[in-house]
């Protein structure tokens, strides 16, 4: 039995600790917002946060999150209200096919938590591990920059 929290809720799964966190999220917990694009840590579609650090869920053995706090795309909304990043992704046209969007949002979320007022270059670095084939990244970067907390 492995116990951890997902989006603030404690969960216990009866799974081999060697299974991928990605599979446990999608199959055991039915949380399919986290996507698989490559299975080798290249595309970032399975990005989630573990204790605030963005990681590829395909590279994490679920045993390694025992006691940890996992955040997935399903946890970004609060009481049915979209998070500012989610709203900005819609408003700026940052989601096209949408398959990279959950991972992209989490990479952006981790960036803004650490660097509330990033430059465009900071944003590019932060999402470089999240491949998108639709947007040329332009509108994704615009959307993330729109969520900056500007120093006044």
């Amino acid at each position, binding site marked *: 039995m492995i116990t951890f929290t997902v989006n603030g809720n404690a969960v216990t799964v009866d799974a081999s600790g060697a299974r991928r966190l990605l599979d446990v999220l*999608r199959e055991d917990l*039915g*949380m*399919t*917002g*986290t*996507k*698989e*694009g*490559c*299975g*080798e840590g*290249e*595309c970032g*579609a399975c990005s989630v946060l573990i204790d605030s650090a963005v990681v590829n869920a395909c590279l994490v053995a679920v045993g390694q999150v025992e006691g940890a706090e996992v955040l*997935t*795309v*399903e946890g*970004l*909304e609060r009481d049915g209200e*979209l998070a500012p990043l*989610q709203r900005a*992704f*819609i*408003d*700026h*046209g940052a*989601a*096209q*096919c*949408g*398959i*990279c*969007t*959950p991972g992209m*949002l989490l990479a952006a979320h981790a960036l803004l938590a650490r660097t509330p007022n990033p430059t*465009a270059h900071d*944003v*590019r*670095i932060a*999402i*470089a*591990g*999240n*491949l*998108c*084939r*639709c*947007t*040329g*990244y*332009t*509108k*994704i*970067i*615009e959307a993330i920059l729109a969520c900056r907390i500007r120093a006044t």
Partner: protein
Amino acid sequence: MAVPLSSPSGPESVGRSVPRRDGRAKVTGCARYTDDLVIPGAWYGRTVRSTVPRGRLARLTQDPAFDWSQVVVVTAEDIPGDNVVQLIRDDQPVLVERDIRHREEPIALLAAADRETLEAAVAHVSIEYERHPPVLDLADATGEHARLSIDKGDVDAALAAADIVVERTFRVGHQEQLYIEPQGAIAVPRDDGGVTIHGSLQCPYYVHRAVVRALALSEAQVVVIPAEVGGAFGGKEEYPSLVAIHAALLAIKAQRPVRLIYDRHEDIAATTKRHPGIIRHRTGVRRDGTLLAQDIEFTLDGGAYCTLSPVVLSRGAIHAAGPYACPNVRITGRALATNTPPNGAFRGFGAPQSQFASELMVEHVAEALGLSSVDLRRKWMLQVGDTTATGQRLTESVGTGLVLDAALANTPPGTDPTSPSLRHGRGMALVYHGSGFTGSGENDLSSRVALECTSEGTFRVLTAQTEIGQGTNTILAQIAADELGVSWEDVTVVVPDTSVVPNSGPTVASRTVMIVGGLVAQAAAELRTRLATERPPLRAEKVYRQPSWIHWDDASYRGDAYPAYAFACVVADVAVDMDTGEARITNLIAALDPGYAIHPTMAEGQVEGGVLQGIGWATLEEVKMDDGAYLNDRLATYIIPTALDAPPITTVLVDNPYSGGPFGAKGIGEIPMDCPAPAIVAAIHDATGVWLDELPATPEKILEALGA
């Protein structure tokens, strides 16, 4: 450029960037892609593939020591219908019977209740081959999938009369579509003996037709329902038919649902790529730059089966002269057969290959004449009243000058050297791209759409167009709403389930807005009139007919190839590291004539995404092969641009309405892919003084050309 969104919607949504329909589902993780669908009791399927590029299947052995009672196995013998993937030519089998023509060719299908059993079963299948010598190089290929020739004027006489004839040969490589969601289909047996397919696909009716034929089912017994599609780019035009047939064969034999979801390795190794090609040009000019003749040989590597090669060849060849008015043109096109995995549809459909060459020819001719290539483009470019290579007289919405001016007006001053090893350069390209199917294609398709007004007073758009990220579901609602004079929020676009929607043709060929959107507008106009006198529920249906002025002859390749063309001009800035040959694109301006942008933000999104895909093809995405197999068969080795490889992209949309498109719109899905490569190669030349004739322009090739 960001276009601010107008929040409250009302009438006149066209031309405004309303929030996309699927936005909320996609940012919350609620959107259900194929592998997200929960189908109780579904088994897992797997494809067993050839490991030789050419040969004969000698024997397939199932290890008798293994317990096969828990596994379903399908081979060619189990196919109830024709062992053919229905497309253009009946050459590609669903499963190998005897002859193997390429690596990764499907031989058998397995399904089991869980992945562990499935994996064990796969390990207990062994295949013996009689290996035959493969044809792997385009230069050695003799088999032909298609050929064509386009003739205008007297090329030989014009070349003989020219002051200067410039000759050059160009080569372009494979490219993987690399949608981030791999291919997949789930087949569910139906009570009527048929099958329902859920899948990641662009063209539900292509899949429908293919499954009906291979499984010998009636049309009513096959239902195809696209799931949310995680990118396609042409890669999910024809290939999903094969995936769906495979899943259906397993499901029918197992009598239970079967999930056939590719992993990334299988997807790259087995599925179609952009056609590699060799393009040879001879261009004759007068000393003053007057364009006299273009003689072009356009050769594509189709791979082992025909797939869509004839139409890729056709579109590529028709665009091969570039957006220029030349009195004498000869284009000979051939798509040849090799023992490599079949190549197929990919955004641009041959035109990126052929216009890479035609744009660089402008540069080479300008260099030979000592003229500016920008001035030469202005002198040659198509204007209203000019005729194209196929003899099409252009009567309206010709945006060459508009996009060229817009690109130059938005180009920043050049960059000064910032480091001793960096050289900066700038290059331009001017391209065009026909909207819709080629020639008589749209007439043959006779696309149908329907628009319904429900008794509650809401509206439903019914088409077979798939939302693959490009925004179909939003844009068709905008078009219908404005024609109806209602809020776009009162219009829904229904899921293109083949048991519900009429066949409005495939979601390809930059046709959705102009052709299908045009039909939706017509249906809306009819419904609006009828609503004045009739009570809902009401339904209007429209069938596409090509405008009467369009004439096309398939035999001679003469006539009006497309109802309208989009135009684009890009200016690319590069910085080349002279130590390493690395060429970074530092800035890119893309000016584009979409006719009229129904949704400016989505139009920009098409440009930005297509441009970066073009940059990838031009610089990073080198496919290496060994014995007919792709060596770059994983995401760690198939390299696409990251956010740090992408330049800032500035998109400028110019209005240039086409009278036959809804609200003046033309198609723009593909043209962004056509333009970056030649501009980048020209910029590399501007920076370093060396010309590359081959894509991708990798650091290895640049450094070699520099002799460093």
